């Protein structure tokens, strides 16, 4: 299926480039509606990638790339459940999202995240599974999970460790602060910083440029230089699940959910 229009996302495949475009109001929060469509995408990926050399992930939302997990849904749907059932549900969700992330991470394609606006939490983690991040000047990257008493749960810590020095990982994780595109480039996260609104255009021209190279060589190089940290990814799920049961997390999620700010992103 070279073309797909879902409720939360769409994809198209043309001239050797697959484009996955997220489009769920307000800012592509990943929850029970988006995850099945992401799963459908990665199930279709083996067929799409046969004739493709690049995948671009971008957002149609002016609010940004992706604000991460749908925390309001996570809180709301966990409330009626007994603690043990909450954990089962959470673990199932995490394992599903990890399968999606791992598939994109290891895809035999050059993957590019075209980021504008916020890439927070799971949105940052989605960008991190890509081989390249091209960010426009409005982009901000953040792991705000600590504000809720959590850690990133979609694979962000092992992947951030893979890409940057440990001091940067500690800074982002332990302060929960957001960094702009220029800072992200200076620490090696972002490949190119471009003018506002230009991330997708530049991602497309980069993908077109990649088409010149021998695909098998590119695949072999990627597999060699980009290991998937499977053990740490599994460990991250365990730690996340352990933390999730704490009262501080419930309080943090409740506060987030009850905020009158539609997108409460400041600490």
């Amino acid at each position: 299926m070279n073309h797909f229009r879902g409720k939360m996302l769409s994809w198209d495949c043309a001239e050797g480039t697959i484009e996955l475009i997220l489009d769920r109001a307000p800012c592509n929060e990943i929850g029970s509606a988006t995850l099945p469509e992401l799963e459908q995408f990665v199930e279709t990926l083996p067929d799409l990638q046969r004739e493709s050399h690049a995948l671009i992930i971008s957002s149609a939302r002016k609010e940004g790339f992706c604000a991460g997990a749908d925390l309001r849904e996570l809180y709301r749907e966990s409330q009626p459940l007994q603690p043990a059932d909450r954990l089962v549900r959470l673990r199932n969700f995490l394992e599903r999202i990890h399968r999606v992330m791992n598939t994109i991470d290891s895809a035999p394609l050059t993957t590019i995240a075209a980021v504008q606006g916020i890439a927070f939490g799971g949105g940052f983690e989605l960008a991190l599974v890509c081989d390249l991040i091209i960010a426009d000047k409005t982009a901000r990257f953040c792991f705000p999970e600590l504000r809720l008493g959590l850690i990133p749960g979609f694979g962000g810590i092992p992947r951030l460790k893979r890409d940057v020095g440990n001091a940067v990982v500690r800074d982002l994780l332990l302060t929960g602060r957001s960094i702009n595109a220029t800072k992200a480039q200076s620490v090696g996260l972002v490949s190119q910083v471009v003018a506002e609104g230009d991330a997708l255009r530049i991602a497309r021209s980069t993908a077109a440029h990649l088409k010149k190279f021998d695909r098998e060589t590119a695949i072999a190089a990627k597999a060699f230089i980009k290991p998937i940290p499977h053990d740490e990814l599994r460990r991250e799920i365990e730690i996340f699940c352990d933390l999730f049961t704490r009262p501080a997390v419930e309080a943090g999620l409740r506060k987030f959910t009850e905020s009158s700010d539609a997108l409460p992103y400041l600490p």
Partner: protein
Amino acid sequence: MAKYEEMSTIQETTNEVLGLAAEHFKVPREELTPDDDFFKKLGINSLQALDLLTRIEQHFRIELPDYELQGVSDFRTLAERIQKRL
């Protein structure tokens, strides 16, 4: 003298912040004052405040961690936070 220069620079910084906010959110500059609550005056949420933060960082060439903005809602205090980073 040093104190006057410092005060003058904070005023300049405050004026620049007001100018950035007016330009970005398309509000007449003369309608903004240093003691305005920028969330209410500009009608913005925290996401848009982050956008303003990005522009401030680019304009002043500083890093201003979001936690520095905790409890800050007026332009004057925002300018003071910026001034400490110059």
